[in-house]
């Protein structure tokens, strides 16, 4: 290669690098707008794995949340972490109610006093088939959640198929439906 061509190539490298970075930024920005790119997202290593071992501290009377039964379910269920002190959880309650007619929802009250969780559900309606309490947040850590609300879609046999670390909105419910149809 002639040296002048080589030099020209070499001196285009900064521009090429900047152009690639710029293209990346553009894709990120459009992803941010459309919701496809989220720099805060933490993907859970639990995806497509069996549900983790965990132990619930307190069981409210009546609706017993049993981790062993969760592992043996024969239809898909949605597991939802929530707390009475969490405002986004309040926002997703309406969607959870609607969803509860189509799929069983199991709820875990994260770092919440049982009576507060109870009151919260009485006030805002209870979408949960079963309810458990995670007083100290240790169950949350076993499931790798970083806050509330978070939801997991669990398939028969206890496989985790889908994870959503935000309040459930239209787009998330759409994803759940399409996953349910596939199974």
């Amino acid at each position, binding site marked *: 290669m002639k040296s002048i061509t080589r*030099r020209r190539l*070499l001196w285009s490298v900064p521009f090429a690098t900047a152009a690639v970075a710029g293209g990346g930024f553009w894709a990120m920005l459009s992803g941010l707008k459309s919701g496809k790119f989220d720099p805060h997202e933490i993907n*859970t*290593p*639990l995806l497509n794995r069996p549900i983790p071992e965990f132990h619930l501290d307190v069981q409210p009377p009546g609706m017993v949340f049993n981790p062993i039964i969760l592992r043996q379910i024969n239809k898909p269920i949605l597991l939802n972490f929530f707390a009475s002190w969490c405002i986004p959880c309040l926002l997703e309650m309406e969607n959870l109610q609607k969803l509860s007619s189509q799929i069983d929802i199991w709820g875990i009250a994260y770092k919440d006093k049982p009576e507060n969780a109870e009151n919260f559900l009485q006030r805002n309606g209870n979408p949960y088939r079963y309810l458990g309490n995670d007083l100290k*947040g240790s169950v949350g*850590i076993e*499931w*790798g959640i*970083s806050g509330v609300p978070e939801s997991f879609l669990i398939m028969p046999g206890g496989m985790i198929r889908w994870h959503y670390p935000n309040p459930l909105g239209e787009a998330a419910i759409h994803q759940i439906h399409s996953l349910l149809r596939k199974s």
Partner: protein
Amino acid sequence: MRLKMVLTMIMGLTFSFSAMAVSSPDEMLPDHHQEKRAELIGSKLRCLVCQNESIEESNAELAKDLRKIVRQHVAAGESDHQIMEWMVARYGNFIRLKPPFNKLTLLLWGMPFLALIFSGMFIWNLIIRRPSPQTPLDEKEKHRIAELIKDE
């Protein structure tokens, strides 16, 4: 294997500042050496709800819980590696402030070497002398420049 050994050696050399945000004395392990170890492990774990802070530096609730878990595991006699694995199994590689060396992070870890080689090449290329046409300075400009740098 060799590379890994060299890398571990370099890593072993890095500063380990023992700063802490432990918010109360009852969080700490009674054994001084164990507490130091827990701090070191904690400083490599990202506080998930904060930005770029380790769990040792953060006052977030979750960071506090994770600090406690790290200390429980240290007290139970687990190795650093085991504790790290436990965390990664739950939160993925996101929790590691120092990402592992794998296919995905090849460029990241290779960057220091690549940068040294490439910037060296780039500059070397510039030092090599070559003739090239340039508009010569006219007399007035030459005189002016001579004046400007006359202090040399």
